[in-house]
């Protein structure tokens, strides 16, 4: 039911783990649907230089987390914001229909991490002003 790309990312996921002192972190999902994703980003000069994830979930949840962290590395914050769940699924050659909504949350987790990065940045700027 999964594409080879999904199975590859599930078997050998990229960027698993946490970033110490991340510039942004975001969590999405809920236990009821069985998927929880936590995304960490490191940002330099408004560019995402590192991303890591921790995911509780099915094969699709783990694979989308992995590929999304790969997609976001090297992108500017603005480019990263434009990554959609659909693009993440496409990068994996598609997901089974029932997985498109419940397990395809990696871009949402990423956007939350970016929100968090911008909140921190704003707080810092206000702090120094």
């Amino acid at each position: 039911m999964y594409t080879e790309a999904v199975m590859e990312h599930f078997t050998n996921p990229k960027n698993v783990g946490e970033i110490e002192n991340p510039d942004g972190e975001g969590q999405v999902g809920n236990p009821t649907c069985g998927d929880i994703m936590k995304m960490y980003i490191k940002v330099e000069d408004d560019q995402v230089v590192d991303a890591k994830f921790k995911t509780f979930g099915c094969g699709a949840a783990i694979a989308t987390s992995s590929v999304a962290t790969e997609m976001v590395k090297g992108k500017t914050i603005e480019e990263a914001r434009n990554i959609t769940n659909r693009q993440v699924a496409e990068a994996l050659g598609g997901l089974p229909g029932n997985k498109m909504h419940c397990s395809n949350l990696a871009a949402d987790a990423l956007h939350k991490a970016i929100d968090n990065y911008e909140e921190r940045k704003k707080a810092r700027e206000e702090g120094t002003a």
Partner: protein
Amino acid sequence: MRRIYMDHSATTPVHPRVAAVVNRFMLSDYGNASSVHHFGKVAREALEDARSQVADLIGADSPSELLFTSGGTESDNLAIKGVAYARRDQGRHIITSAIEHQAVLHACDALEAEGFEITKVGVDGQGRLDPEAVRDAIRGDTILISIMLANNEVGTLQPIEEIAAIAKEYDVLVHTDAVQAVGQISVDVEALGVDLMSLSGHKMYGPKGVGALYVRRKTPLQPLQNGGHHERRLRPGTENVAGIAGMGEACLLAKEELAIRNQYLLRLRDRLIDGIMSEIPKVYLNGHPDHRLPNNVNVSIVGIEGESILLSLDMKGIAASSGSACTSGSLEASHCLLAMGLTHEVAHGSVRFTLGRDNRQEDVDEVIRELPAIVERLRAMSPLS
């Protein structure tokens, strides 16, 4: 890769003896059991022999108390809706449990939409019903109680005998879905005291697409489809002679080896439970430790999700199943595990291994060897652990 099949509650391999019988009634003795010629007579005989074999396995008074169907789902639907429609002038209330198979739950939902009232009795943390809770649910207009004999997910056995005795006091009919129990444990309809019982061929080394419904003599039942005279007009349609003959052979086989099968599986089951519990931290056994099918192992592995465990096991050649939402086709975790009071996270982390007569001790030992590393890898990825 050597593959290990431990999903026998999903389906079983057809036993070679059964396959030979099915083959014969497809290739050589392929007549329609309603025909008057030789071909028809041979098919009719096979049908009636199979009916006797099924009756014999479940201790039915007479083979005429058995109807052949297309499987467990149809048997459940025919039992529940058939009784509901036949007794609707006596009442509209039906009692079932929260952990039934979807065939039962959704048949009840359909009746509810038609104006029947359904009470779903809950279970304890080990998935067992309290017969007194069933008594408390009985009303003046209760017409049927449908409770499974053995649960398909956690293997918990229900006190059907006590429930049937209570039902009798109130003149309420009792149906039990025994799809997972027959062929695994000794099942006797007289000892149980049930009025209707569902069976499936493919859960006991028979073919898919065939099942049976035991209907005690004089039990009111309205057919759900209209057609010819087959199966006493209660289940019209040309009989699946090959499948039915195969199911008969599977029942004969079960009767022959039930005691040995039971002992053998119990030993493997307990070895697997002990192995998993001692090798992996933070694991819980789901279901009742003693009132349990001899082939069922269901554990919740804290912090990780069922489907990713199944995918990882499958890559090692091990076939199992899970109560996780991701594998059920719905967005919710197993209704059974949730009804037992498990949290969503823990329910999503359930894995079920169901053993069969072809499993060997080496198979069990291989699962015990492979599972800890899989769990460790997935836990390292999880934000919950």
